[in-house]
């Protein structure tokens, strides 16, 4: 198809996706390419530094923030399949690096597709019912409430809502390991709501929440699947968007 110059997008895959859920990164690449973007992956990227920042170690976070900004400085657009990591860059980097530091424009994946490109529909068709967990930083720090739902809806995914989809799942980054006694019951409250919807799969736009909920569900022996929104939608793309180089 004749198309004007492809929008060049640098993928910030995040440390968590890189190391425990690379399939989420691959799905993000497929969605971005289906949306007509050229995806590049700066190999020097590591982590946004949020764990250190939230734990109360801004100097250590600063070290990673500086590195992150260096790596992504050459790009006009950075997209990441994580609301939390995007919020770290957009909301907390100015506090950490100073308000006048130039930051690479960073978007969460569904936010980029819907609000920036105006392309909720990438031609994917998925016959599935899911329940959507609105991850906290995506919802409250970036103010993105509708984009993930729009992407799911455009792909034909039915969303069966929990009683309180916007309630925190209890992951909370370091909170999940400093206070399991609270973190785990919070996951249970979420999981009970998710199970009650009857949807076989819980989806979200943050791998931290998904990992926390999945491993808790596994420990409880719950029959519930956990997928990133990008994975669900990418699963409904035609073969021409399959993984490798086109």
């Amino acid at each position, binding site marked *: 198809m004749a198309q004007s110059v492809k929008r060049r997008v640098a993928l910030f*895959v995040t*440390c968590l*996706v*890189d*190391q*425990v*859920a*690379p399939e989420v*990164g*691959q799905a993000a690449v497929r969605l971005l390419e289906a949306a007509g973007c050229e995806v590049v*992956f700066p*190999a*020097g*990227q*590591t*982590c946004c*530094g949020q*764990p*250190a*920042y*939230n*734990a*109360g*170690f*801004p100097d*250590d*976070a600063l*070290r*990673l923030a*500086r*590195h992150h900004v260096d790596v992504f400085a050459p790009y006009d657009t950075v997209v990441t399949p994580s609301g939390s990591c995007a919020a770290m860059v957009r909301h907390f980097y100015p506090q950490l690096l100073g308000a006048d530091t130039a930051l690479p424009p960073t978007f969460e994946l569904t936010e980029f597709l819907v609000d920036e490109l105006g392309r909720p529909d990438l031609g994917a068709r998925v016959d599935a019912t899911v329940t959507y967990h609105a991850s*906290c*930083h995506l919802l*409250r*720090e970036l103010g993105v409430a509708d984009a993930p739902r729009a992407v799911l809806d455009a792909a034909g995914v039915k969303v069966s809502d929990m009683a309180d989809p916007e*309630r*925190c799942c*209890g992951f*909370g980054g370091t*909170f*999940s*390991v*400093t*206070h*399991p*006694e*609270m*973190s785990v*019951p*919070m*996951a249970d409250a979420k999981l009970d709501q998710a199970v009650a919807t009857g949807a076989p799969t819980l989806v979200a736009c943050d791998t931290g929440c998904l*990992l*926390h909920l999945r*491993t*808790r569900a*596994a*420990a409880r022996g719950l029959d519930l699947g956990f997928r990133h929104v990008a994975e669900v939608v990418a699963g409904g793309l035609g073969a021409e968007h399959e*993984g*490798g*180089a086109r």
Partner: protein
Amino acid sequence: MTVTYVEVARHRRAGEPLAPLRDRARASLGDEDLQGALRVMAGRFNVGRRIAMSDPAVSGLREKGMAIRSEGVARLRENLARLEKSLTDLGVHVHHAADGAAAVRVISDLARARGVKKVVKSKSMATEEIDLNAHLEDIGIEVVETDLGEYIVQKAHERPSHIIAPAVHKSRVQVTTLFSELAGHPLPDRREDLCAFAQERLRDDFLTADMGISGVNFACADTGTLVLVTNEGNGRMTTSLPPIHVAVMPIEKVLPRFSDLGVMVPLLVRNATGQKLSSYVSFLNGPRREGEVDGPEEMHVVILDNGRTGLLGTPFEPMLRCIRCAACLNVCPVYGTIGGHAYGGTYSGPMGAVLAPLLHGGEEFDDLPEATSLCGACSSVCPVGIPLHELLITLRQRARTSRGKRWFFGLWSRAWSRPSLYRASARLARYGRPLARLTPPGRRWAEGRTLPEPARQTFHAWWAKTRTAP
């Protein structure tokens, strides 16, 4: 063991040793009655607030409230000086208390001088903060809480677990048992009967008390008006029946103008209980004047600092905007999981987790800023725009943390700001997985969760292999 922690949190007198947050949280999770009460509470308050605040009749109210409170705090000293003058003009005695001990001294001295034997109180978290009841009882004064929730909590020898619903942790069955013991015969477990019982007892206390002690919701600098927002009418009785009224007012309660109440009262009530207006809003303008048929003969205001001035000009200054509506408690998933007593201090929920370390300063509250998943629900509902979860992050920076943690983040950030070391650590994580359970974070993750499996091929490796190879 478990019981001890709950007991400690529930009955603790200020200054008594506190179990670590982790143990307090565990104890609360093991308390079936508390867990049942928390499930009921959250729904009720949050639905009410959401409906009340989405009413088009009050659009823009939050922004106005935020502006009024920011201005009030920015010019706090000036507003307090104006308030003092207005109060004095009305014939109110003004006392300044730098800390809790000073406030207790003022009130005890006054009570002694006037031969006070019985005090009735309407709800006041400031008096909880300074442990006033215990101190008055120590000098032989009978203190009766007259807010129903406070009355329940007092009779049970407990502490409030919520700033506007002090007995929210107790079930009706528990209250029935408690009141039946007080009555000396079994009472039916019906709301109306329980309320009637308390009402009858309290009526006598109101009529025989020598002094009424109240808090203050707002104080208007220009007119000297003290405002009490209540639903039970007990505030009105407390401040008008006994011959002496003492109001305990933390410094931040001052509003620049009487006209600000048009914004602040509905903002408080809608966020607190979801009502449009509380059943009672009392405006107190000094003691009984000549020719008036009721009201106290003497009126005193104790303006309490207790560490608050120290917050001015710091990143924590916004905390002084707080109007104690409890919206942040009600929306907080951590509060909803552990309840108020587990926070260990007078105030609980996100606002308490910020305030307790600031007001008390000791090491005992160092771990309290960890009582949050940083979900930001508190900041998003706060009617006066306090960035609560961000203040909790800032507090974590000030807390005395373990050497191990500091060492870990120092090493980690140095390694992960180098791509080669970052990638090497990913490989290490995969081979070292069997050992993960031996590390403190791994062990704690495994408390209730399976350990995650690191990917066989990282995204970095996948990209390098499929996208950059010739």
